[in-house]
């Protein structure tokens, strides 16, 4: 899956990201929203709240709860996905909520709920990273207090070579995949999964790729928010 000159099937270098485009405020009725076009992936995230937590049993006296729903549209992939929850979407919703809980200042809104809806409109590989990145921009757009943004990106290994931001073929037929959620300002990690096996050296290389890419993606997120509010952050 690699060309003779070391480039990948889609012509990218091993440390090159796909083209990323972010726009904030795309859902007018939501408190905050974002659209992320990442290669062929397209995700829309919308944030509502803080609001009263329903059902009552999920509310917490000392903090807010994040209700994250990740969903892939039935038409987002070539073989139709049955609408509604499935094991995979529940898992991704949960890990996304865990990642976002580390930055959102939940203690400021006791008994409340913040609803985060992530809809994948077109999927090509790495949708959990795209969804988490979109959710983070949407939360900032909604004015939710956070200690940092969350940037998510994956690296993996294909034919023994570590590459950044896997596309569909690399994800399906590659050796391993390492999605990470990174706080770009502090460099802390809030989310890490690994599919397949990586040697310690490869793991380190994938880690470094992700850390480097996080800075790049963070700049795009900042530019998207600045464009919406007419600033030059």
């Amino acid at each position, binding site marked *: 899956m690699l060309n003779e000159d070391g480039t990948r099937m889609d012509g990218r270098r091993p440390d090159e990201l796909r083209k990323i485009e972010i726009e904030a405020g795309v859902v007018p009725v939501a*408190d905050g929203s974002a659209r992320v076009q990442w290669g062929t992936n397209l995700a829309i995230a919308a944030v509502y709240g803080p609001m009263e937590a329903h059902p009552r049993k999920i509310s917490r006296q000392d903090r807010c709860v994040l209700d994250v729903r990740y969903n892939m549209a039935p038409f987002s992939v070539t073989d139709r996905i049955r609408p509604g929850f499935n094991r995979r979407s529940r898992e991704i919703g949960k890990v996304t909520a865990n990642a976002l809980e580390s930055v959102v200042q939940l203690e400021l809104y006791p008994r409340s709920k913040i609803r985060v809806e992530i809809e994948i409109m077109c999927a090509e590989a790495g949708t959990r990273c795209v969804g988490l990145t979109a959710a983070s921009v949407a939360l900032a757009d909604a004015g939710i207090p956070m*200690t940092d943004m969350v940037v998510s990106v994956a690296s993996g290994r294909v034919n023994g070579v570590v590459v950044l931001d896997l596309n569909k073929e690399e994800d399906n037929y590659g050796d391993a995949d390492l999605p990470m959620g990174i706080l770009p*300002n502090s460099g802390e990690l809030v989310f890490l999964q690994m599919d397949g096996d990586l040697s310690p050296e490869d793991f380190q290389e994938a880690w470094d790729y992700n850390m480097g890419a996080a800075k790049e993606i963070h700049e795009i997120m900042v530019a998207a928010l600045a464009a919406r509010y007419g600033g030059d*952050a």
Partner: protein
Amino acid sequence: MSDSGDVGRLVIPGDSLGEIGERRAGHGVLRRNGELIATRLGHLSEKGGELSVHPVHTAYTPRPGDLIVGYVEGMRSNIWFIDIGGPFNAILPMSLAAGKVDFGATREYMDVGSTVLCRVQEVDENHGAVVTMKGMGLRKLNSGFVDTVPSHLLSRVVGVDGQMLKSIKEASDCRMVVGQNGRIWIEGDASGTRLARSALSVIREAGHRPDIESRVRGVLEE
């Protein structure tokens, strides 16, 4: 990334605002490892050595004493539940209604959907609020129109020393009450109400821009 020098700059959650030094962390700002960090999306402001972020979007958080416009959302025999536009409904006990209400007769006095001008009496540590209708001018609103402006843009509606609100009232010949929760009650004839609402819609659309005052004046003069 930046010093406090660039007041008015748009900041993103996680942005470093430089060393703490002599400054204090205000609203939307956090101290971390000797640095000040922005926690909200908004414009930076500094007042008396306190650095804060004026957010571009925020939910209404009730504070005691706020004058607000609420909608009745439900009731029991002795209390009403009032939608105040915040994360939680407030309660209005029968004893704090404007007139005398009999136990069990809350619905006759104010039904679901009624609009009330009330004041926040107290807020507990869980953001639960109690509102009151005892006070000058507090009443059930039977006429007029309620428009909304996000609560962080209210300072633009009121303007410096209330000048902006005054000119909207004069140009439209309407009575207006600005609720701290972003709901604004307007009463006047149809053309006046329309003018006041178009001024508010300009603030809603472009309230974060520095030239908002001249834009609104442009609408009023038209």
